[in-house]
């Protein structure tokens, strides 16, 4: 199918067209980048909800129940489920859908499994762009499930409006060690598999470690016990998400978050382009033994970039 036909189908909201555009964007093909450029301004921000947490805590199963509730309330729901790529073979086994069988009951749910392709922050580098494609398609809500390798999955905070951190009763002891990472990014905490022993203790652990959290933006951070396999208390979680959505909508915070996101996107692109374009200059420096600062200054002068001396002195 050629690109103009694809775009026609996309505008008519054909799922196959959405899927193909996502592929183009995921592969960073020219047409994919073209699509993003053309459609950025026209798209409407979706509510983006991130689901993160260590492996095996039940993230996909929770998404399965949540997507049902979102599908009943909103017109269009997107899911991006990320699994790790092998650094050795480049292959990936994408199994999140296995737990999301409820999606087949709803025509307005679209799930896409994505491989992390070498990215380390729990997402793929394409996740932001794929979210934008889904926004152009008209998704009201996008659920983004991270890889789930643990501590360092902080990227999710930057591309979503709400972050849900999922833990299990056995997480209790390790929460102490987690304080510096995962525990700081959650807007809502879930203790899943709470039909098992120790759930209440885990909730207490989480609450006490959250009480140290700085810059608490509003009231208390909700900590919710669920059991995805028994479908217990999922409605409370859904309510907590909706409360948070309402709070963000009514305050300036959502606007601020999205503005920061836009700024960061520009910086990311600039950084990427700049590094790529100066690679050769660095390799061809005359004085190989000059200090890195000297070299950097030379390159900036060569590129004609107008930096202020003040900025330089801070270096």
């Amino acid at each position: 199918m050629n690109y103009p036909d694809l775009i026609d189908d996309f505008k008519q909201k054909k799922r196959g067209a959405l899927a193909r555009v996502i592929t183009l964007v995921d592969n960073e093909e020219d047409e994919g980048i073209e699509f993003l450029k053309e459609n950025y301004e026209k798209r409407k921000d979706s509510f983006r909800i991130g689901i993160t947490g260590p492996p095996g805590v039940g993230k996909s199963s929770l998404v399965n129940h949540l997507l049902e509730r979102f599908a009943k309330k909103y017109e269009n729901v997107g899911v991006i489920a990320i699994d790790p790529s092998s650094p050795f073979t480049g292959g990936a086994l994408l199994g999140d859908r296995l737990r999301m069988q409820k999606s087949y009951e709803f025509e307005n749910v679209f799930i896409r499994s994505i491989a992390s392709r070498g990215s380390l922050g729990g997402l793929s580098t394409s996740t932001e762009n794929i979210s934008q494609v889904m926004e152009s398609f008209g998704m009201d809500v996008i659920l983004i499930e991270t890889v789930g390798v643990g501590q360092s999955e902080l990227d999710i905070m930057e591309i979503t409006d709400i972050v849900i951190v999922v833990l299990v009763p056995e997480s209790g002891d390790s929460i102490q060690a987690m304080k510096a990472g995962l525990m700081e990014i959650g807007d809502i905490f879930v203790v899943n598999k709470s039909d098992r022993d120790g759930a209440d203790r885990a909730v207490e652990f989480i609450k006490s470690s959250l009480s140290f959290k700085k810059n608490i933006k509003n009231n208390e951070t909700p900590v919710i016990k669920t059991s995805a396999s028994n479908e217990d208390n999922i409605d409370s979680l859904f309510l907590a998400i909706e409360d948070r959505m309402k709070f963000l909508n009514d305050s300036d915070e959502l606007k601020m978050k999205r503005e920061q996101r836009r700024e960061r996107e520009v910086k990311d692109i600039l950084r990427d382009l700049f590094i790529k374009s100066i690679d050769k200059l660095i390799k061809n420096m005359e004085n190989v033994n000059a200090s890195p600062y000297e070299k950097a200054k030379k390159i900036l002068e060569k590129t004609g970039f107008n930096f202020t001396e003040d900025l330089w002195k801070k270096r």
Partner: protein
Amino acid sequence: MEKKIRVLVAKPGLDGHDRGAKVIAASLTDAGMEVIYTGLHQTPEKIVRTAIEEDVDVIGLSVLSGAHMSIFPKVMELLKKEKKTDILLTGGGIIPAEDMEELQKLGVGRLFGPGTQSKDVAEYIIEWHKNRK
């Protein structure tokens, strides 16, 4: 970014023997593909919907129940209906040679029976992908 071959591995119908499907999914992953595994009891409708959403190049079905003569044609028919005949439909299981032949006449790709080496499946898919269009 390098393009990856995306494969949907699914188990249609009612039989619960998913070891073979899992082994194939793992070996295709080892061959560098992105494999979507959807688990047991998938209907042809679910399989085709997943294939479209995931924009896969290949669908691999594992059928051990003897229902291959109804499942493969049904998936093929749905793919035609969705104008997705550029997707390779392949698979394996307990399928007699004469049934394999008949299914291939309908446009199904190569089918693999007992005793297949998993690398043969990966090689077949990689070769097919190279020669495509």
